[in-house]
């Protein structure tokens, strides 16, 4: 019993040192009909550390934001720095192959186009 209690503690302490907190970014979701636009604030993330995946109808964003070490002693600490992660269930009807994303000024914009088959189609009415 004593061994079980003593052993995990140093391991957990080490994990806490290596882990950084993960934050849920604020997102705007705009439906333009032919595509759905996801705009997320992920300040501090580097473009090379951003993963966007679409699997089983779920769009996921994970962005690694490296810790920023400001010199000196802290006077104010109003926010924390860490990675960003968020997922959205979109369902069917989207063209996974044509999903695109761009990152600029700490904001990622993901374009998720709908499949042409599900878009509304105007039917021409012929007169005989």
């Amino acid at each position, binding site marked *: 019993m004593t061994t079980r209690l003593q052993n995990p503690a140093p391991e957990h302490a080490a994990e806490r040192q290596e882990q950084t907190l993960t934050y849920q970014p604020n997102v705007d*979701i705009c439906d*333009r009909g032919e595509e*759905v636009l996801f705009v997320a604030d992920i300040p501090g993330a580097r473009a090379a550390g951003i993963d966007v995946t679409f699997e089983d109808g779920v769009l996921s964003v994970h962005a690694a934001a490296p810790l920023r070490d400001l010199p*000196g*002693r802290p006077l104010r600490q109003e926010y924390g720095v860490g990675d960003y992660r968020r997922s959205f269930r979109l369902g069917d009807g989207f063209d996974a192959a044509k999903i695109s994303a761009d990152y600029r000024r700490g904001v990622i914009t993901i374009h998720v186009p709908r499949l042409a088959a599900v878009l509304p189609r105007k039917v021409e009415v012929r007169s005989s």
Partner: protein
Amino acid sequence: MPTFRTGFALPLDELRDEIDRFWTTLTAAPPLHGWGAGRGAGLFPAVNMRETDDAVTVEAELPGLDTTDVEISVAGDELVLKGARPTAGAEPGNGRQKPVTWHRRERGSGSFERRLELPVAVDATQVGARLVDGVLTVRCPKAPQCQPHKVEVRTA
């Protein structure tokens, strides 16, 4: 014969106006500081501040803003951050007027101004700022009279 009292419908009109206002706020972009009334509400941007012997460094997250969108001014021991963030979907180049449906609007927009009291007076002419990946870092070197001065002790 009973008559309707004047202004009978007024409370209902007020209620309808209130619901209209509430609905408008639900469909509009939130303010930059969010809707919450909790701790930190009303403050944008949030800042981290650190102090070294010769400078005070202030960091703020301003995603979506360019250097031209932020105005930084320093006077004595006060740092002021001012600026504005446009509404998503209203960026230049998005000229189309096609109606869109918003499923979520969590990112704030609008103008902001935050005044920060620095622990010491700083040298306004030496203040430098950079904005990288939506993170603003302002380095404010302390005024010479506020920097630590080592006093040499002489022996008699």
